[in-house]
């Protein structure tokens, strides 16, 4: 069975049809639970060490609960619908792009997957090899232009090598399985 973007769209369509307050609730709930753990842990510390965590943690928990209650009440009180993306922050400036929420979620999920795969590549083979493989395959997959993909990979590799390694003398992570080891194994 081949997974194509179109074949998994129904999953994201279903996800996008779920009341967004549920996702918000899960996110704020996790924040609240972690803070609860912090508050409980803080009680085991000395008075000086626990003072600030408790001063911040307890009201923070109250704020999270208040946020959850307001979200839950907004539906029943008809205070207005919740947008999945809240632009009020000013930080979430979003372009007026004509894509359905399901497509947007699928693309965002794919990008998160790319980053996770990149992290694994980085850990295993280090920055320089992972950089080339990641950039080439990413640009090739999305733009279908092998020469452009190679140019982006080699150009970025050259910049990183010259700027970080030669000029600044920075040590770049070589990976848990450096390429030399991989080559010997093969």
């Amino acid at each position, binding site marked *: 069975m081949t997974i194509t973007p179109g074949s998994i769209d129904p999953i994201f369509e279903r996800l996008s049809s779920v009341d967004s307050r549920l996702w918000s609730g899960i996110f704020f709930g996790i924040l609240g639970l972690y803070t609860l753990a912090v508050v409980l842990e803080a009680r085991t510390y000395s008075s000086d060490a626990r003072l600030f965590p408790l001063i911040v943690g307890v009201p923070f928990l109250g704020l999270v609960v208040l946020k959850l209650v307001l979200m839950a009440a907004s539906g029943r009180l008809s205070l207005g619908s919740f947008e999945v993306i809240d632009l009020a*922050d000013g930080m979430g400036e979003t372009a007026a792009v004509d894509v359905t929420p399901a497509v947007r979620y699928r693309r965002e999920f794919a990008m998160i997957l790319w980053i996770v795969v990149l992290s694994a590549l980085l850990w295993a083979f280090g920055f320089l090899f992972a950089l080339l493989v990641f950039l080439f395959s990413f640009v090739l997959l999305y733009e279908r232009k092998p020469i452009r993909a190679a140019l982006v990979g080699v150009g970025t590799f050259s910049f990183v090598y010259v700027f970080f390694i030669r000029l600044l003398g920075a040590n770049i992570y070589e990976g848990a399985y450096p390429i030399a080891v991989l080559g010997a194994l093969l």
Partner: protein
Amino acid sequence: MTELFTAIDLLLPLQQTGDPTEAIRIAIDTVLTPRNLVYILLATLLGLVAGMFPGLGGPVALALLIPITYPLPANVALMILAANLGGTAFGGSITAILLNTPGDAPNAATVFDGYPLTRQGRAGEAIGASATASALGAILGVILLVATIPFIRQLSVAFHSVDIFWLALLGLATIAVVTRGSVISDLIAGGFGLILAFHGLNPVTGSARFTWDFDYLLSGVPLVPLIIGVFAIAEMIKLMGERSTISQEEPDIKGVLVGVKSVFRNWKVFLRSSSLGWIIGTVPGAGGTVANFLAYLQAKQTDPDPDSFGKGNINGVIASEAANDAKDGGSMVPTLGLGIPGSASTAVLIGAFVINGVSPGPLLFRENLQIVFIIVFALIISNVLTSIVGLASAKYLIKVTQINVTTLVPIVVIVGLIGSFVIRGQFSDVLLTVGFGVIGFFMVKFGLSRVALIVALVLGPLAEQNFHRAFQISRGDPSILYNRPLSLLLILGIVLVLAIPLYRSRRASRT
């Protein structure tokens, strides 16, 4: 090469008399040597480029330069480092404006209006304003530094621990006022930042907190990898969802000049922000984050149209960047006067002083006054250079906003992850960046301010440590919190910061 520099050292002797005229002459001779001018140019360009990469700006670029400058004479080495420092602050504003990713925490407030301007196709205007405000702010900061040399010691010790505690609270209070989201969401984001700030070894109480048996967390949650995660990585995930260029509008090349002019047109905002930045810069440890935010807040509060802030008001960029660069001159006051770093960058600079056999503090002004002036001249030259390079390259820089995201995103992601690694050389920092990239993405989705998170993470430890220090000094007497005039002034500032928006909204609802 070392012999050559030894010979040059003989021509440029270290000053021993403390005579300002002699010190200035030696400083000019050092800085205006053609080769040293080239060094300044290279250091400035390096600072500018490093500042553009989240994680490499300020202290990291300086730290990486120290081994390179080590073989050089002290005068030249410190000149290069000062020039590098001058270049990094503006570099951080470029990514804040173009990619919604501040180069460092002190550029955080620049994203509020810089990025909306970019999305409106006005990136050139924002960069023009940032370059001009940065350069002029830095020059004003340096002029104020020179003017205060006669009483630098008194200024350096003006702020006690308790004042720094109140100043940090003043910075934290801006979270509820500056950001545009719901107050509850902003406070939750700020609270989350504070909770993160409590992780790790507390230097005052000596206890390791919330490490959950991970040695990695002993040194706390590292700031720069977190910034790269919540801004750069999160922004790239979001852009891939939209699959469009950053700006839908064709960038306006002529806007650069409009941005330059806007600084002169809004000279009151510039002067107020620079002065505020400089004063806060003199407070050891407070650094640019407080300066950046308070300057932004005052610009918003004094503007006839405060609601336009956060939607692309050029004064937001001017205020933030003028304060950020002016604070460098201010932070030199405690750095040079007492040997107490005024910011993270100047902490590294102090290390460079020591490595080069120069002791910052009162003796510096008696025995090596020429170094003070070399730093002053290097900062002025580097800031002018940075501004010129920034303005000249703006038309090329803004093309980033037109690059296809499928090309831009992977480059930003990989360079961001490299930036998060090189600071401490720990792969765990890369994983933390990725983790906070996902958290930052959900913060955008659910309307939580990432800037509030960063401000709280920076200022939380500052508030806590100075609170405990103040109580240790007073042997537990709580009256220390309010028995100094400066403390009372700062408390009044907090009350005003919180009350003015309430007053305005009540007045607006009546009318």
